[in-house]
């Protein structure tokens, strides 16, 4: 082997200043000087930015000129630059797995302030790595092929945009949506800020494009129930719930709805936030995609009791699309990567009883008012209270379920702009006086501040203060029959009582109620707030820690439509790049059996969650399938005879690390 000239271990240690990030807290020169005294070390250097080209060149020159055959880089976390230095070593002709990173930034200089202690810690960690790298072996990277198919979970604007982008690149896409139609929350909005273009006008063409795209398989009313495999080959099972209407036969004529035995709609219409009613057989909204009716099994008499005239069947007798015997079915697909775009739910304002939602009928959420101002909404676009009056005064309360220690701490980012938009629309529809109660107005975005100025100039009243309560307790005749907002106006320093006909709560965005299940299903992580966790907050905001799984839209954190579309495009680009590369390089950290030492006790076999270990009856030895092994090392730790080893995490390597960090204590 060329890198092991004379069979001698020649270690190079490279200590990074990271500008001031490390050097301010750790005496990097002292660390390098100390490293130079360690056995096996032939050169130890410190440099301002080891990851820069000249820094990497230092390493490469030593490999070429000093025959360095082990590299220890004391710098940042291996998750950041391990690949950088492995690449540098490889280009200089050294097997990349002779490199060991020492994390003296995230785990040292950034968390400690005592320079002496931080320097001692850095020395300990470097010593451990120097001892460890002695045992490193040359390894080959494993390549796995990538299926070009992509699964998109969630059919809101994020999922729609991601699916179209991937499909346009020529790859096959499966789009799975659990509701009967795609469109998500955006389909419920009336206008979009700040341009006030109508949400349906810009969304529905994209919905139709999804339906018509030859590369997209659209499964609505469906849910992912299991995910197996890993990057390149995920085996996914999708449950298709029965809608009791055959999608291949229904043409969306809606005659069945007209003839339903329920002459009047009687059940809450989910799409209109319960502000209107629908029948047991219904279509969520006129532009629903696919345009296929669905039967609600909780409401349909036939499905509940089996005793109905089934007039819908008669209306559809020619096509025969209605099928009361439909059962749920399962589809199994193989995809190379997955884009998760499962969206959000809005904060339930019943959790803040002081605002009277659910108690006073004229307290609404922003999403309900979106439906009220919409021309195809429950009131045909009339903004009226529940008792049919046109409101003369409307108050919009911001940060309901956002920026609040008692509910959700985060800013939901869209409520300020949504409220400005609704203030404008309500004024336009009703001429009412509109009050916005705010903590801070956040109008950062292209054209957003300008829109805020426009609404200010339209005469909307801005009251800076968190509303204490909404009450119907009138203190004087002007308040009779009205709701009263009690609020401290912090700009003037007075506590005010403002009588209102209608109160709108700008409810915040939250992770979906079952986000935790989705997280576990796909093996990704959540942030503390319950939104899905990205791989890097700045540089990888769509990939996750699980290779081949990307996130887009509000399931990752609150964001508006343009940001959602951008992230969805980015996630799609990552999925396309992965598919076009055609392979993915895996860490060679798999486990293997040393056959001579295996006693055939079979302890390891049930431990492997991937069924990678089998038993060879002829030899009476265990066998590890390298392709199936994901490299967790659980079997290695369990083997009673120590005959399972793990590449990159060999026992000798870890023991030498343990003893290395503890050398002072002896």
């Amino acid at each position, binding site marked *: 082997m060329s890198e092991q000239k004379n069979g001698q271990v020649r270690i190079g240690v490279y200590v990074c200043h990271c500008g001031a990030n490390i050097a301010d807290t750790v005496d990097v020169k002292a660390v390098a000087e100390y490293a130079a*005294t360690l056995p096996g070390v032939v050169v130890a250097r410190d440099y301002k930015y080891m990851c820069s080209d000249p820094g990497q060149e230092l390493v490469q020159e030593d490999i070429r000129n000093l025959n360095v055959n082990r590299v220890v880089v004391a710098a940042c976390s291996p998750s950041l630059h391990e690949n950088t230095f492995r690449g540098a070593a490889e280009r200089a002709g050294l097997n990349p797995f002779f490199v060991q990173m020492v994390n003296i930034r995230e785990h040292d200089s950034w968390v400690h302030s005592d320079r002496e202690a931080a320097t001692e810690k850095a020395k300990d960690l470097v010593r*451990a790595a120097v001892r460890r790298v002695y045992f490193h072996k040359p390894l080959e990277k494993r390549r796995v092929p990538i299926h070009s198919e992509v699964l998109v979970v969630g059919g809101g604007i994020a999922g729609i945009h991601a699916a179209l982008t991937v499909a346009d690149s020529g790859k096959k896409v499966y789009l799975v949506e659990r509701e009967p139609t795609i469109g998500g929350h955006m389909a419920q909005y009336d206008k979009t800020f700040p341009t006030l273009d109508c949400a349906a006008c810009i969304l529905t063409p994209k919905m139709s494009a999804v339906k018509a795209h030859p590369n997209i398989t659209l499964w609505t009313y469906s849910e992912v129930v299991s995910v197996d495999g890993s990057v390149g080959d995920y085996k996914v099972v999708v449950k298709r719930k029965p809608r009791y209407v055959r999608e291949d036969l229904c043409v969306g004529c809606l005659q069945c709805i007209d003839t339903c035995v329920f002459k009047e709609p009687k059940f809450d219409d989910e799409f209109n936030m319960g502000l209107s009613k629908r029948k047991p057989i219904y279509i969520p909204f006129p532009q629903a995609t696919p345009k296929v009716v669905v039967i609600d099994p909780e409401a349909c008499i036939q499905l509940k009791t089996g005793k109905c005239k089934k007039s819908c069947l008669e209306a559809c007798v020619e096509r025969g699309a209605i099928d009361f015997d439909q059962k749920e079915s399962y589809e199994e697909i193989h995809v190379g990567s997955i884009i998760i775009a499962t969206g959000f739910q809005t904060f339930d304002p019943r959790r803040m009883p002081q605002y009277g939602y659910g108690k006073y009928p004229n307290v609404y959420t922003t999403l309900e008012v979106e439906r009220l101002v919409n021309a195809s909404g429950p009131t045909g676009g009339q903004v009226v209270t529940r008792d049919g009056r046109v409101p003369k005064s409307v108050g919009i309360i911001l940060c309901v379920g956002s920026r609040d220690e008692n509910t959700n701490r985060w800013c939901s980012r869209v409520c300020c702009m949504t409220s400005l938009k609704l203030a404008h629309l309500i004024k336009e529809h009703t001429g009412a006086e509109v009050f916005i109660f705010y903590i801070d107005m956040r109008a950062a975005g292209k054209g957003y501040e300008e829109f805020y100025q426009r609404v200010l100039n339209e005469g909307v009243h801005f009251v800076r203060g968190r509303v204490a309560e909404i009450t119907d307790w009138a203190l004087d005749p002007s308040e009779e029959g009205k709701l009263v907002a009690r609020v401290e106006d912090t700009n003037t320093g007075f506590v005010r009582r403002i009588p209102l006909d209608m109160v709108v709560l700008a409810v915040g965005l939250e992770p979906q109620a079952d986000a935790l299940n989705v997280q576990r299903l796909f093996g990704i992580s959540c942030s503390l707030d319950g939104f899905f966790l990205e791989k890097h907050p700045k540089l990888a905001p769509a990939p996750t820690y699980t290779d081949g799984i990307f996130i887009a839209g509000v399931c990752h954190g609150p964001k508006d439509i343009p940001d959602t579309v951008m992230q969805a495009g980015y996630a799609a680009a990552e999925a396309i790049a992965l598919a076009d590369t055609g392979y993915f390089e895996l860490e060679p950290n798999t486990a293997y059996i040393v056959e001579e030492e295996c006693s055939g006790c079979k302890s390891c076999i049930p431990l492997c969650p991937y069924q990678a270990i089998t038993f060879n009856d002829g030899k009476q030895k265990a066998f590890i399938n390298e392709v199936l092994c994901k490299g967790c090392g659980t079997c290695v730790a369990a083997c009673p005879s120590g005959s399972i080893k793990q590449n990159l995490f060999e026992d000798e390597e870890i023991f030498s690390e343990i003893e290395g960090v503890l050398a002072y*204590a002896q």
Partner: protein
Amino acid sequence: MEDKPVTTDKLSTSKDWEPLIVAFFCNWCTYTAADLAGVSRMGYDPNVRVIRVMCSGRVDPQFVLDAFAHGADGVLIGGCHPGDCHYVEGNYKTLRRYLLLKRLLRELGIEEGRVRLEWIAASEGEKVSKTINEMVDQVRALGPLRLTRKFKEWDAELAALEAEAQSEEVEVHA
């Protein structure tokens, strides 16, 4: 390979004694959380040395014993929360081993507070800092374990006993 001798024994007097904790963090949750603690500058005591493993399931009980034998005063194991393991269920295996290990340590006279298993998710940087500080305080209260020194003392005791036995033997024969 042996290191050059350390010139000053920092741990020779109890006044200077500071607990030394060896931590085994899984790559996907706890190591990442420790990175997050760093990025967010959530400071903690500098007494901990983190060793990265892919999964807490890789933590062989021998690693823990080896750490104690070589002078660690405490050992911390960090893994993903139950149900969140990157390798499906490695952390459950860790838990099972940990419970057995604790019984073994008790038998060996090593206090329970010197070993700790904690589930820390990738987003829980704050928990890394809190757990390490708690652990350091706890081990500081327990005092030094100094197994390495005890080994030497025991060796010396044994040698003395042996010498005594030999001299007795000589007497008997005489």
